[in-house]
């Protein structure tokens, strides 16, 4: 994976980037209260007195949030810390009723890890994970319902978050984009976060700086908050890096600051200077004891781990013999991978993969269906491939059978049987057709024998047509060759 280098007349600049990703934890209830986490409920219905910051209310930790964060940590090859602590991060904002966020500061639940990313050219790089800590989400401010007021909904206040912090290891927008896609795939496999960036259940802060090629220390960075799609993250890195270079080349300096990326213009604007607004006055959370876990507790979670995309991909390539590209596409989504595996069981996996990547995905896309809604079951797709492999139907007929399967949901054997679509491999029957075509088209036979061999395709077409598409093309070819020469 090649680093992004910005070349100017005088210099070559290297792009440096790190990400902080907030993932909403999948759980029934909030991190420190028994209120529901359900999305899209009436305002202020999923709120307990704890979430509303009422005096005297004490938080109690939801075990599921801890388990989910540990699972995510294990999925990122990270060290799970048996000792962690909660801290208060103090800031003043209308949708933060307590006036502080319960988070982890000095002792996070998950320590260093890593994730390997691979880009289209097949090259790989390992991105370091700095830490994952767990914390509570804030409420939601709605600014556009009233000209003079902001409305606050606390349904989201207190929902569990995992903040995944990477090292400043990205050297191009592509690497960051690949990392996010892969991370999203992993949390979805694990069921620890639904990964929907457009609904805000996965939000990304992007830190960008540049340095001249050869420099070893980092220059000041700017941070862009809440960039909400993979594409925008990539755009934000590129445009911000270019802005830094321009500032430096014009003799200016970059200060550490927080900016807002605007996808419409593809540029960022200043939000606040970091040193002042970020005086969070962290201190240990007095309402919660340190979180102490045992090896046994962590080992039990390890046992629940599902096969992750990379391992599945490797197994599909090595054991099922499909191509690396097919394996990558099929493994991005766990349900798709499971569908494929079921369809391929006992059949020609490579052909099943071809059908899935081609006609099957096209069918789902056309009707806007998810894999669960597929009218064709995994078993039936496998059977269809079997009918082709065993020579019961030919490739062209298979396309028609596939269409009928999509319409009716029937099994391919039943459709082939009822519609009489079995391929004709019976040499005598095909020979009879060939004889008739040769007799009816003496001019073309003459032309072929005089060297116009391109006519072979025409003859094959005629025989196939006369057989109603059911003749085995290989048999037809062989017989025609011998009869015409």
């Amino acid at each position, binding site marked *: 994976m090649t680093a992004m280098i910005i070349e100017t007349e005088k210099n070559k600049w290297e792009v440096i980037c790190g990400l902080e990703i907030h993932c909403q934890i999948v*759980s*029934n*209830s909030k991190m420190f*209260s*028994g*209120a*529901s986490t359900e999305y899209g409920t*009436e*305002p*202020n*219905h*999923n*709120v*307990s*007195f704890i979430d*509303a910051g009422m005096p005297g209310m004490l938080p*109690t*930790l*939801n*075990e*599921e*949030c*801890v388990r989910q964060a540990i699972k995510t940590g294990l999925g990122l090859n990270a060290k799970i810390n048996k000792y962690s*602590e909660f801290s208060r991060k*103090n*800031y*003043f*904002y*209308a949708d933060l009723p307590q006036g502080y966020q319960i988070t982890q500061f000095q002792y996070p639940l998950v320590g260093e890890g890593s994730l390997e990313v691979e880009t289209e050219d097949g090259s790989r790089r390992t991105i370091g994970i700095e830490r994952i800590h767990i914390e509570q989400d804030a409420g939601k*401010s*709605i*600014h556009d*319902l*009233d*000209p*003079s*007021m*902001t*409305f*606050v*909904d*606390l349904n989201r206040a207190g929902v569990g978050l995992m903040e995944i912090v990477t090292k400043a290891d990205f050297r191009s927008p592509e690497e960051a984009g690949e990392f996010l896609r892969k991370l999203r795939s992993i949390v979805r496999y694990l069921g620890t976060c639904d990964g929907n960036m457009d609904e805000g259940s996965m939000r990304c802060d992007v830190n960008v700086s540049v340095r001249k090629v050869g420099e070893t220390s980092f220059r000041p960075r700017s941070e862009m908050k809440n960039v909400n799609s993979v594409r925008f993250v990539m755009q934000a890195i590129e445009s911000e890096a270019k802005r830094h270079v321009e500032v430096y080349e014009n003799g200016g300096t970059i200060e550490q600051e927080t900016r*807002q990326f605007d996808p419409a213009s593809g540029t960022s604007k200043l*939000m606040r200077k970091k040193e002042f607004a970020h*005086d969070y*006055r962290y201190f*240990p959370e*007095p309402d*919660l*004891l*340190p*979180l*102490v876990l045992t090896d046994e507790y962590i080992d039990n979670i390890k046992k629940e781990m599902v096969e992750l995309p990379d391992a599945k991909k490797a197994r599909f390539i090595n054991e099922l013999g499909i191509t690396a590209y097919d394996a990558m596409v099929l493994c991005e989504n766990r349900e798709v991978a499971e569908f494929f595996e079921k369809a391929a069981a006992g059949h020609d996996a490579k052909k099943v993969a071809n059908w899935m990547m081609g006609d099957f995905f096209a069918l789902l896309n056309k009707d806007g269906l998810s894999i669960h809604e597929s009218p064709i079951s995994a078993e039936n797709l496998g059977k269809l491939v079997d009918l082709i492999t065993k020579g019961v139907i030919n490739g062209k007929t298979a396309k028609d059978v596939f269409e009928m399967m999509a319409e009716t949901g029937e099994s391919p054997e039943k459709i082939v049987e009822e519609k009489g679509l079995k391929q004709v491999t019976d040499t005598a029957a095909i020979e009879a057709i060939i004889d008739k075509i040769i007799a009816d088209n003496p001019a073309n036979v003459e032309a072929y024998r005089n060297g116009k061999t391109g006519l072979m395709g025409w003859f094959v077409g005629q025989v196939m047509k006369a057989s109603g598409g059911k003749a085995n093309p290989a048999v037809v070819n062989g017989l025609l060759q011998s009869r015409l020469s």
Partner: protein
Amino acid sequence: MAIDADTVRKIAFLSRLKVDDDKIEDTKDEFNKILTWVEELNEVDTDGVEPLVSVNQTNLTMRKDVVTEGNQPEAILANAPLQEYGYFAVPKVIE
């Protein structure tokens, strides 16, 4: 550690507390008295000792992931100076 008048103003701002100008000096002195008192603890040698978060020796107990509360918007909004359409209504927040 000594607190000066500017630090008092900064902390007041971060906490959204209004401290009148004629109270700044007094507040500063109070801060310093408290800090001086706490600084007596510096006499104890804590080299190589991890900070103590809690004197409680029990472990943190965790809750099962079950929904037990909610559906009480009236109670949640009861103390709100202003509410609209079921939301807390606050003066426009501009980033």
